């Protein structure tokens, strides 16, 4: 078994079926730290099922997941999070009526006091929230503001900062710019580049080939529950990706 400690995450021969439908038919791929690894494929190719297996939402029927060369096993999103895997879904998972700092610390609240008399340490959470945003050069007018008042791009940035800010090693992003305008997309792409510089492994799902070629270091192409090809982004082109995704080109691993 290959379990290269250089890979932030490596999945080996992951299989997952829903009833008689095989969503993943033995998927193997890896992502290195400090790189953006893109997963592309048509709807129904298995991308979402794959990231949900990695995020612990689904448990794979067969196959292995290795983190930094160590085999891991988890059955819930919380367990996956404990291994340093964070996911930013398209729905973002932010609570609109809570403030930005409350969202950043949701279910990881900092407490003070002893025993059963623990209360929220709001000051520490506010300070640390400001730092989390600053680390990734995200500018938000006030962390005391509610998420409801933020633009789509700002929300995306908050969700990404939350995913990146917990000593995480792997950040999975599902179509992070699908709902954004041109300028906001550029900002989120900058943000992704900065996370890469900080040594995070980023798994990016995107339908936007320009974006994939611009941001990604490594590209995996999925089709019908299989990985069709994996290559360095600089060695491929949009046309080749389209050919692989549609099945016009058979591809090679």
């Amino acid at each position: 078994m290959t379990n290269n400690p250089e890979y932030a995450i490596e999945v080996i021969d992951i299989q997952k079926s829903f009833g008689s439908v095989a969503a993943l038919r033995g998927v193997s791929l890896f992502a290195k730290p400090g790189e953006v690894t893109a997963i592309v494929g048509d709807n129904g190719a298995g991308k979402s099922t794959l990231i949900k297996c990695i995020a612990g939402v689904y448990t794979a029927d067969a196959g292995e997941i290795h983190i930094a060369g160590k085999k891991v096993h988890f059955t819930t999103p919380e367990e996956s999070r404990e291994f340093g895997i964070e996911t930013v879904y398209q729905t973002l998972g932010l609570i609109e009526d809570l403030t930005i700092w409350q969202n950043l610390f949701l279910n990881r609240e900092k407490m003070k006091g002893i025993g059963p008399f623990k209360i929220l340490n709001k000051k520490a959470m506010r300070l640390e929230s400001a730092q989390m945003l600053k680390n990734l050069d995200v500018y938000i007018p006030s962390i005391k503001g509610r998420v409801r008042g933020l633009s789509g791009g700002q929300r995306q940035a908050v969700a990404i900062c939350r995913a990146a800010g917990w000593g995480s090693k792997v950040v999975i992003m599902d179509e992070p710019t699908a709902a954004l305008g041109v300028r906001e997309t550029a900002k989120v792409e900058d943000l992704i580049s900065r996370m890469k510089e900080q040594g995070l492994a980023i798994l990016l799902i995107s339908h936007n080939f320009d974006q994939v070629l611009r941001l990604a270091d490594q590209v995996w192409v999925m089709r019908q529950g299989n990985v069709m090809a994996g290559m360095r982004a600089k060695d491929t082109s949009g046309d080749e990706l389209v050919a692989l995704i549609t099945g016009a080109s058979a591809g090679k691993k």
Partner: protein
Amino acid sequence: MKLSPKSSTSSAQAGEVETSTLNKVRLATKDPFFWSNWIVVIAFILVVLVFGALKPHSFLTMYNLNNILVASSIPAIIVVGQTFAVATAGIDLSISSIMTFGAVVYGIAFTNGSSWWVAGIAGTIAGTLCGFLNGLIIAKRKISDFIVTLGMLSVAAGFALVISNGVPRQIVSNSLSNLAIGGFGRIPYLMVIAFVITVAAHFFLFNTRFGTHILATGGDPDAARSMGVNIDLVKIVVYSISGTLAGFAAMLTISRIGAAEPAANTSLLLNSVAAVVLGGVSLFGGRGTIFGPFVAILLLQALTNGLTVVGVAAYYQYVSIGLVVILSAALVRTK
């Protein structure tokens, strides 16, 4: 004329401070939360001023204000539970029935020889159990809060009739009636109890991890779940709290009327929902205060009391309270 550099910088600083406070006020008034939080306070002051001006010698007396405080205290305790339920985007329609059930349990315990406070614990626990059942069914069976608590409304009221045979029991206890009559100086004990519970609830909602999870569950249950918040537990705890407070309030009601009655006090349910809306708690969950509904209860009681003092027939008071609720909800929505 020349300004010394020192004075010019200090005036510049003063100017900055001024604009920033001004900005803060401007930002606050633009925030819809500001209006939904403060509208009830403004309305309360208006009601007191209007009735005070109309009947200064009967409305604004210590005796009458004391009446308003005593009448507010039990609804103020009930509304805390309702606020928690609504904050999770739910509603507790069963609280008045649970209170009746708690009262009947109290009556049975007391007439079987329990002391007033032991009976109080029994009634409170009965309330907790009903609330716990509400929460358990809502969380585990994924049935809407509305349906489950509507069912419990009937079940608890029915059981109250069954175990009491429909007969009220007289409760004679000096300690208990002293609870309703006495007070710290001018502040009635009942109001002190209600206020302590309100403060504790505020602290719980805004200064504990679980409180944040209550708001998160109400704001967006899917997002909360995806962050690992145990939303089932939130529901169970919230309805247990609501039931507990209803069971506890049962004892305070008995202290006022001197009997454990198996009849449900439905206006209490209406008032609790009304106060939650008036108090600026979003019926869609995730947002609200504890003190808003508290002031709203004071407002509703002052309104009822004022209308009585002015001489409006009791039938019109129902109409007026209903109108106030609809009006305030309309105001909050058009923010």
